[in-house]
């Protein structure tokens, strides 16, 4: 257990010393800053569409750390050393996902408060947006590790990562944006269920990709 925590802590440290803390947050806030320039200062329009834009920004920010999640550890032999010590690939993937939740998801949630102020989102929506993102971000962390494991070492890994991410995140986006609608229905529950399924499956998919990539 201590080793697991040590590996999660290493993930967080590597992310925050490698630009992983600021890059997604700055990207996210940049979208929130630029969006009003596109729509114009129509407060009602911003309030209606702003939450959805933040959802899209969060999904795309997921792609930013992908290149440094798996490939450097494979090249430096860290993955081999963990496998040698009896770590299953799924457990390594789980530690990386947990690290991503701390290093990527938490800062993004904090940035959402700033972002929603920049867009001028009504306060009632901020709570819903935060809850929805908090539910979805573990799934996004899982997807980023999974895609990083699948594309590690391939040329054009970032472009391929985008292609892989988009279809899988569509349900998250539909339910996530649905929670912000006038009559949200069961969108929040469906979002939670979708996110849970993706989060729970991603360590296995990422683990299988890590195993297949070992040469």
């Amino acid at each position, binding site marked *: 257990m*201590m*080793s*697991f925590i*040590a590996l999660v802590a*290493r993930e967080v440290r*590597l992310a925050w*010393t490698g630009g992983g803390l600021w890059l997604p947050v700055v990207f996210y806030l940049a979208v929130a800053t630029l969006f009003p320039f596109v729509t114009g200062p129509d407060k009602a329009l911003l309030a209606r569409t702003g939450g959805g834009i933040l959802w899209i920004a969060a999904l795309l920010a997921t792609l930013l750390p992908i290149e440094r999640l798996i490939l450097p550890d494979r*090249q*430096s*032999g*860290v993955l*081999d*050393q963990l*496998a*040698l*010590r*009896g*770590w299953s690939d799924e*457990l390594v993937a789980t530690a990386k996902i947990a690290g991503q939740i701390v290093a990527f998801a938490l800062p993004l949630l904090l940035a959402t408060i700033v972002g929603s102020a920049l867009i001028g989102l009504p306060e009632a929506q901020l709570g819903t947006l935060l809850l929805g993102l908090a539910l979805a971000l573990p799934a996004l962390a899982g997807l980023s590790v999974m895609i990083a494991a699948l594309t590690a070492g391939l040329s054009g890994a970032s472009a391929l990562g985008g292609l892989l991410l988009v279809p899988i995140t569509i349900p998250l986006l539909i339910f996530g944006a649905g929670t912000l609608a006038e009559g949200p229905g069961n969108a929040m529950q469906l979002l939670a269920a979708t996110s849970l399924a993706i989060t729970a499956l991603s360590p296995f998919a990422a683990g299988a990709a890590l195993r297949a990539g*070992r*040469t």
Partner: protein
Amino acid sequence: MSSRQASVPSLSLENVAVIRGNRLVLDGLSVSARAGDVIWIRGANGCGKSTLLRLVAGLLTVTSGTIHSEGHMALADENMALDANMTVEAALRFWADMDGASADARDAALTAMDLQNLVHIPVRFLSTGQRKRASIARVLASNADVWLMDEPYNGLDSASCARLDQAIIARAASGGIVLVAAHQPPSINVAMSLILDSQGVAA
């Protein structure tokens, strides 16, 4: 992650064959080692020395044949597995903690590889030979029963080579098994010198 149990290390490969990338890298290879053995694997570039070590480490699977091993393993290959931005001391401590190694074992490993003066230097500033020494120190500190060393003498100066010789002799004398893959002839007494030919068959 694994709990340590006192067991006598042993290693046996029977009739092992490996195909990698449509090429038969190793074929009909049988090796066995008991506690205290140093096995020296020689051969030209590309003859399958590294593949053999990765097989023993469990990082690759055999195409046919069987491998059985007892004891914890440590691997030093071309990849250092130390985080470039950390100091030598912190990077080594990460793995020592994973292995449940004591601070004494860590210090002894640093001393054995003459790294005491480099402990506060970030790993990325190390020279080729210093990197090699740091990666060997990682193996030394692990207290593993079986050491797998891929070209450990590459890049080392003569003083460091002698230190490595001493470390290998000491590990074998204390009941470990050391597999050394190298292109040069053994510099120490070895239990077995295995020469792989270009087909990966023990000649």
